[in-house]
C-alpha cells in the first residue's frame, strides 16, 4: 500500500461523494449509541470526533464502525470523474456482500443516470488494510479495475488538506508472487454549482474560533501582530536601558541619543482636543462592539428559548401536517 500509481489516469472527485461518506459514517456512529463523551453534533464533512484515543481510553469504548459503499461516475478516456455514491451492507468478518441489493441499486441509478457506472467503492478508516482487498476483488466482476476511496474520520486540527485518499490496484511482483496491492493516486476536486452552494452553506454552519475567515478578522489579526512586535521591541530597548542604568552594560552615548530621538517622535500630537476626540471615537467603537455582542447574544438566547419551549412545554401548539404549498 504505497507509492503513486502509474496508470496515468486523472481522477476528479465531487464533494457530494465526500459529504455522502461522512454522513453515512456519522449516522451509523450516532445510532450505535456511544457514550456521550465520544459523540458529537452531527454535521457534514467537518466534525467527526476522534475515536482513536488508544492511550488509556475507557474500557467501554467501542472501535469506530467502518462503513462501506459504492462510488459511481463516468470515465471518459483517461479522466475518471466520480459523481455520486450509495451505501452497501458488507460484513468484513464473514466477507458477505449483499449482491442482490447492489444489483437493484445499480438498476435504479441506471434509470436516472444512464451514463454512470460503478467505478469502485469507499470505506472509512485511517489506512488501507489487507482485508479491504477482498471487497476490492469482489467488485472486480463489475468493474475490472475498481477504485478505493478512503475517508479518514479522525479530526486533526493541524491537517490542512482533505483526509480523503483514492487507491487503485496494481499487480506487482513481490517475492516472486504476483499480488494485487493498493497504490495511491492523486485527485482533484471538481464542483458543480449546486455543490458549491451546499458546501459553502455547511462551511458557515459552525463558525469555529480558529479560522479568520472574514476580511475584518484578517486585518485585525495583522494589526494585532504588528502591535505585539512593537511591544516586544520596546521591551528589549527598555531592558537595555535599565541595564545601562544599573551599570551592568557600559554606557554608549550614540545609542542613547538614538533612543531619545525615537522617543521624541511619539506622541505626534499632544493636545486637549486630540485626547477628547480620541476618547470619543474609542468609546464609539466600543459601544458598537458592545451592541454587536448584545445582538449576537440575544439571538442565541432567542433560539435557545424557542428550542426549550418546543422540547419541554407540555401544552405547546399541536404539530399538524401543514398543507403542501
Amino acid at each position, binding site marked *: 500500500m504505497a507509492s503513486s500509481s502509474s496508470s496515468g489516469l486523472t481522477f476528479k472527485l465531487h464533494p457530494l461523494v465526500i459529504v455522502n461518506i461522512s454522513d453515512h459514517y456519522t449516522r451509523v456512529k450516532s445510532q450505535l449509541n456511544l457514550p456521550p463523551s465520544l459523540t458529537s453534533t452531527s454535521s457534514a464533512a467537518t466534525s467527526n470526533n476522534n475515536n482513536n484515543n488508544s492511550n488509556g481510553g475507557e474500557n467501554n469504548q467501542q472501535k469506530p464502525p467502518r462503513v462501506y459503499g459504492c462510488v459511481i461516475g463516468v470515465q471518459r478516456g483517461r479522466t475518471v470523474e466520480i459523481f455520486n455514491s450509495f451505501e452497501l451492507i458488507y460484513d468484513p468478518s464473514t466477507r458477505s456482500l449483499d449482491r442482490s441489493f447492489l444489483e437493484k441499486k445499480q438498476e435504479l441509478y441506471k434509470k436516472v443516470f444512464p451514463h454512470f457506472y460503478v467505478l469502485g467503492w469507499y470505506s472509512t478508516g485511517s489506512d488501507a488494510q489487507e482485508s479491504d482487498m477482498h471487497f476490492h476483488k469482489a467488485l472486480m466482476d463489475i468493474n475490472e479495475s475498481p477504485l478505493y476511496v478512503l475517508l479518514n474520520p479522525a479530526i486533526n486540527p493541524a491537517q490542512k488538506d482533505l483526509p480523503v485518499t483514492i487507491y487503485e490496484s496494481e499487480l506487482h511482483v513481490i517475492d516472486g508472487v504476483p499480488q494485487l496491492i493498493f497504490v495511491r493516486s492523486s485527485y482533484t476536486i471538481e464542483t458543480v454549482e449546486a455543490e458549491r452552494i451546499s458546501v459553502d452553506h455547511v462551511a458557515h454552519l459552525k463558525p469555529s474560533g480558529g479560522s479568520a475567515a472574514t476580511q475584518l478578522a484578517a486585518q485585525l489579526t495583522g494589526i494585532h501582530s504588528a502591535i505585539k512586535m512593537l511591544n516586544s521591541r520596546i521591551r528589549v530597548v527598555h531592558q537595555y536601558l535599565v541595564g545601562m542604568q544599573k551599570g551592568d552594560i557600559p554606557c554608549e552615548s550614540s545609542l542613547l541619543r538614538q533612543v531619545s530621538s525615537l522617543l521624541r517622535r511619539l506622541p505626534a500630537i499632544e493636545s486637549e482636543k486630540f485626547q477628547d476626540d480620541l476618547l470619543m471615537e474609542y468609546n464609539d467603537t*466600543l459601544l458598537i462592539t*458592545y451592541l454587536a455582542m448584545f445582538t449576537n447574544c440575544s439571538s442565541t438566547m432567542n433560539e435557545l*428559548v424557542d*428550542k426549550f419551549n418546543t*422540547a419541554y412545554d407540555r401544552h405547546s401548539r399541536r404539530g399538524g401536517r401543514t398543507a403542501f404549498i
Partner: protein
Amino acid sequence: MNSVEGLLTQIRGLSSTASDVLSLQNVLKQADESLHAESTRLLPFLDQLDPSKHSLGYLYFLEACTAGPVTTESASSFVLIIARFISSCVAEQIRLAPDKFISVCKRFKDQVLLLEEPLRGVAPMLTAVRKLQSSTEHLTTLHPEFLLLCLLAKCYKTGLSILEEDIFEVDQPRDLYLYCYYGGMICIGQKCFRKALELLHNVVTAPMSTINAIAVEAYKKYILVSLIHHGQLSTSLPKYASGVAQRNLKSLCLSYMELANSYNNGKIADLETYVQANMEKFGSDNNLGLVKQVVSSIYKRNIQRLTQTYLTLSLQDIANTVQLNRPKEAEMHVLQMIQDGEIYATINQKDGMVRFVEDPELYKTCEMIEHIDLSIQRLMTLSNKLTVMDELISCDPLYLGKAGRERQRFDFDDFDSVPQRFNI
C-alpha cells in the same frame, strides 16, 4: 457498642488519603442504619474524632446524633458543636456526602431559630455554603437557608455578597425559587430595586410544571417592585416563562393587578382610596411596606412625566400638576430625584424655576471605556455559555422528536412515513 467503637477506629485509620476516604465512605454507608439506631448515645463519641481530619466520619456521626427531635436544651449544645464542625471540616470529604451535610445544616438552622438567635447562624452557614458549592456558579440547597437566616437576622449586607455571584448550575428547582425569592426580599430591604426586580423576575419566569406558592408570592412582590422602580408593569410575561405561569399567575394576584391599573392612571387620590380599601389584604401578605413605597413613588412618576413635556417649569406649577400641597414639597422631591440620578435638572432658587436638561454623560472618559470593556467581557463569557447550551439542547432527543414532527414539508416524499421518533 462494639460496632460503634470499631467504626471509630476505622474512621481514624482510613481518613488520610483520597482512596482510603472512598472505602471509608462505603463502610459508613453500610453502618448508617446501626448508627441511627443508637442516635441518643452517640454524643460522647464525637469527642474522640477530630472534625478537621475525620470530616466524613464526624459528619455521619453528627447526622445520626441530630436525627432526633430538637429541644431547647440540646439545641444550644448542638449549635456550638455544629458551628465548630462547619468551620473546621474539609471540603473534599464533605462533598462526598452532600445530602448528609445539607440535613445537618438544616437541623442547625432549625435549632438556631428555636433559640431565636438567627444571627449566630449567619456566619457558620456562609462557611457551609462556600464549602459545599463546587464553584461560585453552583447553587446548593444551603443557599436559600442562608438567605433565610440573613433575612431573619436582618443582616442584609452579608446576604448581598452572595447575591452578587452569577448562578449557572442548580441542584433542585425548589432551591432556585426560594433563593431568588429571599434574595429579592433582601434587595428590597437594601433598596436595590433593580436587582430585586431581576431576582423576582427569575422566580416568575422559571420553568415550572405546576403553579407553586413561591411563584405567586414572588409575582405579587414583582408587581409592586416593578411599579416602584419602573413606574409601569408589563402586562404579559415574556415568552420564556412557562405556560403554567402565563395562564395562572395573573388570576391569582387580582388585587395587585388592580393596584397597577389605578397607578397607571396617575391619580393619587384614587390610588390611596384603593389602598385603604384593601389594606388588610396587603397586610396579610406582609406587603404593606412595599405598598406604601408604591404610593410615595407615584409622585416621582408624575414629575418624570413632566420632563417629557416641559423644558422649564415653576415649582408652583409642579406642585399643582403632581397634586402636592406646597412648592416646598415639590422642591424637596425634585432635589431628591436629582440626587438619585433619576432626572437631570437645575433648580433656580431666585425665581423658583426648574429647568430640565439632558443626560450630561458625554461618553468621552476613560472610566466609561473601562466600564464598557468590562461589560463586553461579561457578555462574551455569557455568549459562550449560551452557545454551549444551545448545542446541548439541539442534541436532546426530546427536542429532536418534537421538532421532527413539525418540520416543513416541501416535497411529496416529506408527507410519507414521518419519523415520529428518532431512533437514537
